[in-house]
């Protein structure tokens, strides 16, 4: 059974969905919630078992499971994990029970809601674990339907527009992913004598391509993932989707779904087309930097607090992309670290914004104010999450952002300088939003609002705790990430491995975090 750990983890939520379906009307709303929570917690437990069996020293993919699915097409059921996907998987399994618990107050069609959540978890986990390109595409596409239903079925006033926009944007992007996969498959047929989507074999196939073809395929894959991340100027679906989605939907969207995009950039763009990646490095860097500044600037002028957090995601994900395309050890490690950190910090922010909305029934910053008087604990948690998000030393995002900036400075001063502006902007808009929510005169109708409930403590405490833990002791994460990113660097920019300019910086960052 232990050989099938990845499959078990991926399919357990799906089993929960089946249970919900089979249970039918016999399961009341409460039972449906309990089932969903139990299943997501069990999945988290299984993912910890993966962590336990993961060997940070080992090369390549671990816990690999391989079997033919459709031999005629060359589709393999191929799952495996490495240092890059490890923490993303655990982040996913961690955030899902949190999201389920945060959705306890959902009243409408609870069974269907929870079912969509469970389907979503399987699809996301599958995306992180699949090593067969078509299998990845299958999971990648399968993310769309449950997320579409969550936004469109339980979202805000403008939910249908947001849901359809989300669906069509992502699907349009993934169209290019499919074409590129099929193109590689056809090339494999020519090279190896049989079509395959096996990533490990496709690396060789892609390396044999003419440079121009490789660049086109790189662009195709990049578009697919850039929509998902989202990278400027393909980000326009994100503010709508985030704003209209129910709280748990926003948490999962920011926490894990966007990471499928950045993960795809590393896993597919970098490992399949290192030369093309080098070729487009500056162009991607420019887009990332624009995203950082633009996202921050637009967040600055938002009056809708949820939209504000959404645009902050555009800015933060720009950091991740910038770090990845720095092609330095610090940059990529920082990028991967930031994926996890952003998932936790922004997840926490969305949870808190959701709790505020449940109380005040508004997301308009001008309608709030003075809330720290009545809800000191809730606003305290908000401030904590804001600090984590802006990269306060001692909290998680600091290490990641620091590594990214160090890694970027080592290769491009301009990008590094502008990225620092993004950090400042983040401090401004997030703290300002806190100020407008927490201080100032309180509105009369807000005077009797209750502070955090026990359930909400259970939702927030684990997330906030991790913000601190990963800030103080990031080596938990980097221990597994470092060897994996080093391999990526060896593959993409072999020159960078020897000139370990930032080696000291890594130690420095870890040291500073430890204080």
């Amino acid at each position, binding site marked *: 059974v232990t050989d099938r750990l990845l499959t078990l983890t991926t399919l357990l939520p799906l089993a929960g969905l089946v249970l919900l379906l089979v249970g039918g009307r016999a399961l009341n709303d409460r039972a449906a919630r309990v089932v969903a929570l139990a299943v997501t917690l069990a999945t988290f437990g299984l993912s910890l078992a993966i962590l336990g069996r993961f060997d940070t020293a080992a090369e390549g993919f671990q816990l690999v499971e391989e079997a033919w*699915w*459709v*031999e*005629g*097409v060359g589709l393999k059921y191929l799952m495996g994990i490495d240092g890059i996907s490890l923490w993303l998987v655990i982040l996913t399994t961690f955030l899902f029970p949190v999201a389920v618990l945060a959705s306890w107050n959902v009243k409408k069609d609870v069974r269907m809601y929870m079912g969509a959540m469970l389907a979503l978890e399987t699809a996301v986990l599958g995306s992180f674990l699949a090593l067969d390109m*078509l299998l990845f595409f*299958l*999971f990648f*596409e*399968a993310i*769309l*339907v449950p997320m*579409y*239903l969550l936004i*469109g*079925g339980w979202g805000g006033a403008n*939910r*249908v527009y947001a*849901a*359809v926009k989300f*669906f*069509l944007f992502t*699907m*349009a992007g993934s*169209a*290019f992913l*499919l*074409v590129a996969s*099929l*193109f590689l*498959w*056809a090339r494999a*047929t020519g090279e190896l004598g049989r*079509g395959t989507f096996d990533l490990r074999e496709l690396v060789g196939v892609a390396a044999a391509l003419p440079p121009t073809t490789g660049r086109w395929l790189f662009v195709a894959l990049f578009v697919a993932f850039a929509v998902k991340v989202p990278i400027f100027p393909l980000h326009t679906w994100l503010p709508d989707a985030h704003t209209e989605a129910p709280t748990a939907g926003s948490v999962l969207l920011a926490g894990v779904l966007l990471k499928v995009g950045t993960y795809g950039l590393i896993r597919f763009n970098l490992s399949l087309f290192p030369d093309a990646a080098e070729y487009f490095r500056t162009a991607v860097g420019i887009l990332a930097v624009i995203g950082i500044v633009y996202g921050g600037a637009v967040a600055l002028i938002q009056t809708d607090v949820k939209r504000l957090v959404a645009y902050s995601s555009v800015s933060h994900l720009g950091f991740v992309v910038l770090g990845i395309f720095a092609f330095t050890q610090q940059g990529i490690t920082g990028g991967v670290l930031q994926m996890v950190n952003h998932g936790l910090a922004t997840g926490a922010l969305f949870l808190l914004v959701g709790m505020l909305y449940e109380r005040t029934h508004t997301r308009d910053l001008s309608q709030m104010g003075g809330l720290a008087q009545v809800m000191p604990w809730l606003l305290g948690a908000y401030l904590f999450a804001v600090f984590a998000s802006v990269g306060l030393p001692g909290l998680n995002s600091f290490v990641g952002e620091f590594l990214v900036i160090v890694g970027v400075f080592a290769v491009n001063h301009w990008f590094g300088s502008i990225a620092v502006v993004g950090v400042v902007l983040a401090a401004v808009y997030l703290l300002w939003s806190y100020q407008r929510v927490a201080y100032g005169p309180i509105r009369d109708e807000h005077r009797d609002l209750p502070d955090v409930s026990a359930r909400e403590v259970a939702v927030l405490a684990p997330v906030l705790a991790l913000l601190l833990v990963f800030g103080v002791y990031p080596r938990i994460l980097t221990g597994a990430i470092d060897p994996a990113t080093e391999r990526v660097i060896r593959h993409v920019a072999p020159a960078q491995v020897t000139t370990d300019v930032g080696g000291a910086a890594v130690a420095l960052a870890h040291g500073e975090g430890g204080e």
Partner: protein
Amino acid sequence: VNDIETPRIVLGPILPELFLAGFAVVGLLYEAFARRATATVHLAIALAGLVGAAVTALMLWFWVGDAYVLAETVAADRFSVLARLILLVAAFVGLLYYLEHIRRDPGAFRGEFFPLVLFATSGMTLITAANDLIVMFLALELLSLSLYVLTGITGRRRANEAAMKYFLLGAFSSAFFLYGIAMAYGASRSVKIDVIAGALAGQTGGQALALVALAFLVIGFAFKISAAPFHMWTPDVYQGAPTPVTAYMSAATKVAAFFALIRVLNVAFQPLTWDWTPLVYGLAAISIVVGSVLAVAQTDVKRMLAYSSVAQAGFVLTGLTSPDSVGISATMFYLVAYAAMTLGSFGIVMFVAAGGRERTQLSDYAGLGRRSPVLAALMAIFLLSLAGIPPTAGFIAKVGVFSAAIGAGNWPLVLLGVLASVVAAFFYLRVLVYMYMREPEEEFDVEPPAALANVAAAALAVVVLVLGVFPGLITDFLREAAILRW
């Protein structure tokens, strides 16, 4: 004059057609002579025909006799067996739908429906087995004439108009087809598909006549598969015909015509592969774009599905741009999936009715997810499959035809196809939006369908899902069936 050879009569390979046509005649006689013909007896007769045909078709899978029989006019290969089985299932589902239709609207009962479906089906199965263009033409006429009548079988104004339109345009396409046959004879001195292939392979130099024949035959088929720009009849006929007929017609006609087209292209005109692939390429591109774009503008679900079937024809043609067994088996998989999801979606369209009339406006689907969760869920599965979203058969089917096309170097067509899929996703999703995210303007209770019809639709949904997760279940059969001899 005395040494005219009479062909050896081997009836085995056309037993399915004999069963279908035979029981169709029995049904007609029953309708003519029974004092009060009932649907039950008609159904029994028709089922006897279908079951007999299915059993004999299955036996043909293991046929070890001659490859061509009856003066080499009929091919006895697994290719046609597979086609027959799909068609028979489609006919069976069509009959079940019709029972539901007349249960809801007893006045609509016409006994001729059953024998006509059998006649149409026998034409369809024969067209996939024909190794002779004349036989193919006869089968084509048999199925077309039956379908013209079926379209107008209610005698209502709309249905009559649809039938007339279908008839006129269908007659045109038959003329094209016939003219193509004449040209093919001119080019090769034969109407036998395998002989044409041999003759064309042996020719060098200008092949103008053969190319004209090819063009005319393809146009004739393009009408039947409703590929753009020969799709004009499709929306009106699909909308005007009674929905059980639409369901049956859209699934079965397309499957039959595609199988025949595959044989004509990949056998008779195999030597001219380089000439016909661009033709198929162009038809596929136009169909995909026209079907997807025009479907967006529809507010009637039945019309929307009609335009979507034009786009689907384009996707199937995409698979045919790969002129080898990979392309053929991918195309066949698509056809299997297409038949299941089309029959299913039109079935649900038929079930969404109240007060004895079908509600086909998009706005009628508002709130369906709450009022009839089962119907809505089934519809969602069929629509997601049509849109090509995993884990449905439509997804695997699309990957299959796209990878075949890319394998043949046609990646621009595939890029167009996947982008059009996004457009298509928009209008399929719109139905989902109405079903799950909109509140109805006008409350009406959807009359729950009878168990039998419901089971049929649910079974199709299961097929769609199972083929989406375990396509390997049928790929081996498809590979066996994709071997065409000449």
